[in-house]
């Protein structure tokens, strides 16, 4: 008995040490890139062009002022636009994917199987080719230069759906749903008040991913948006990068990239609480 305990203690120690080593290496790798990003936003254009440096430059304020004063880069509009587009995209894709997943998970109906297979097929379909067709379509619908084509399509997000579906398989017992039905709740209420709380970690995970990918998305927004004040942050970064030689300044580019990252870090820390705390089944037993 004693021996076993001792062995367990040693094992635990080894595991802890191993954990710290691996985590330190990974942390270094992850933070290192942030570090050079920050460093580069403090450096002069010509210095950045010449390559890497581990030591900060003296141009932090200069770059910041340059970015803030550039009439071609309406940065506050950019942040607001990105926040609007990404928040709506994240909320819509999470809610409707969970709804769709629940529809296919909890109910039995004729088209259930075909519907599931259909969604899985679109998941597999490469969408590269259809981007320009999409642009033509939304032009016909008179939606160009608006946020709708960037927000509404996220209602149909096959990969988010599939995640929600898988999560329900592993964590949503039908018995809970039945209990709610017995209590007389209608199906929508059951979904909103019983299912969604259980899905919180899954929702938080996908909300983060959806938010971040929408936040960093360049290709589709660049095709859709034209008015300077409607542009999202990645387009503004791109416009700095395509500036003419007189105005081209990598210090500004890195500064704007850095500025663009700050809001998503906040969103991440905010949402990650839900994952970290974890809403366990025990928590909803009521």
């Amino acid at each position, binding site marked *: 008995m004693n021996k076993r305990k001792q062995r367990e203690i040693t*094992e*635990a120690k080894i595991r802890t040490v191993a954990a710290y080593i*691996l985590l330190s290496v*990974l*942390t270094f790798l992850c*933070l290192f890139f942030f570090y050079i990003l920050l460093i580069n936003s403090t450096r002069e254009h010509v210095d950045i062009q010449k390559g890497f440096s581990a030591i900060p430059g003296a141009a932090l304020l200069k770059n910041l002022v340059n970015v803030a004063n550039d009439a071609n880069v309406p940065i506050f509009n950019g942040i607001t636009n990105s926040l609007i587009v990404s928040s709506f995209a994240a909320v819509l894709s999470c809610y*409707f994917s969970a*709804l*769709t997943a629940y*529809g296919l*998970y*909890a*109910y*039995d*109906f004729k088209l*259930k199987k075909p*519907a*599931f297979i259909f969604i*899985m097929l*679109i998941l597999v*379909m*490469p969408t*590269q*080719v*259809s981007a*320009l*067709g*999409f642009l033509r379509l939304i032009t016909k619908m008179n939606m160009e230069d608006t946020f709708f084509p960037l927000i*509404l*399509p996220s209602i*149909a997000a096959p*990969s988010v759906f*599939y*995640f929600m579906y*898988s*999560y329900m398989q*592993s*964590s949503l*017992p*039908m*018995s*809970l749903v*039945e209990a709610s039905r017995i209590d007389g709740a209608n199906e929508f209420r059951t979904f909103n008040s019983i299912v969604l709380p259980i899905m919180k*970690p*899954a929702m938080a*995970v996908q909300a*983060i*991913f959806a938010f971040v990918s929408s936040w*960093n998305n360049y290709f589709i927004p660049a095709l859709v948006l034209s008015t300077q004040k409607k542009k999202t942050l990645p387009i503004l*970064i791109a416009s700095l990068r395509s500036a003419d030689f007189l105005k081209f300044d990598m210090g500004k580019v890195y500064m704007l*990239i850095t500025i663009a990252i700050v809001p998503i870090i906040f969103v*991440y*820390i905010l949402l*990650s609480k839900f*994952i*970290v705390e974890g809403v*366990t*089944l*025990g928590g909803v*037993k009521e």
Partner: protein
Amino acid sequence: MTKGYEEIGVASSTPKKEFWREIMTSKETAKRKKVSYSKWGYIFILPFFLTFAIFQLIPLGSTIYYSFFEYYRSGLKEIGPTFVGLENYKTLFETDLPKYMGNTFILWILGFLPQITVSLILAAWFTDARLRIKGKQFFKVVIYMPNLIMASAFSMLFFALFSDIGPVNSFLVDSGILSKPYRFLSEVWGTRGLIASMNFLMWFGNTTIILMAAVMGINPSLFEAAELDGCNHKQTFFHITLPNIKPILVYVFITSMIGGLQMFDVPQILTDGTGGPDRTSMTMIMYLNKHLFSRNYGMAGALSVVLFIVCAILCLFVYFSMNSEENSAPKKKRIDRDVLNTKAES
């Protein structure tokens, strides 16, 4: 794809829930109940399909349609569309497509193996109440951070780090490991290695978070029970954690594979679209992208369809092989479920 039914079947095995079992087993009741409930199924999935029909169906349909046409732009002049049957497919298989498939697969595997291993380990550690790591919260935040950087910005940093005169090379030369700089982006495995590392760094945080969320969804009483029974970490991991997160694991595997087969942005940016050296880093979507510059909807469409079929076959294979594995241990699964359900109701 029978999974959904099976799960419901599992759930219905709960002895206390006669009601549900009635719905599932008694034909009469089922019919009556089905009518009232199936309506909700349709209602719940309606927004998804409506949105898809409005925004995606036409562009996607035309992708397949034009794969049978000669249709491209020469400058601003549109050539075609002229129906050419399977000509585009024939042309496609005369190109180096198998080579690009091979590249894609290699690049995916190089990134995915370390990614899934590290993610599983981290997810297990982060959710293990018995393993005390100081600053767990900090690490959880940090691992996801590379994903917040735009791929383009990330690769700009990679360029600076691994360039011929960059810090990695100066370190390797100064420390005497190499006699002259290793020109990463001019060497086949140097380039592939960088692409895989970038993919790994950008995505292992995501995978870890997904797996963590999955582990969090497991009823804690299962872990408590395991601890009481004297299970060690390994046993808990393999007998409690893994079986219970299996659907999510399958999800991770399949979406990773799709993401891998559709890998584009990282190699595109890192090799400046060339897929170099000697096209050894050219992935299938990069190849597809080449055709899009001339608006060659015919060839691009054909390539999309081929990619789609390859991807669908691989996914089906993975889905079913992982499912049958699951079926080999149905007892275990069912017991877990019962414990879980009983607990949830208590």
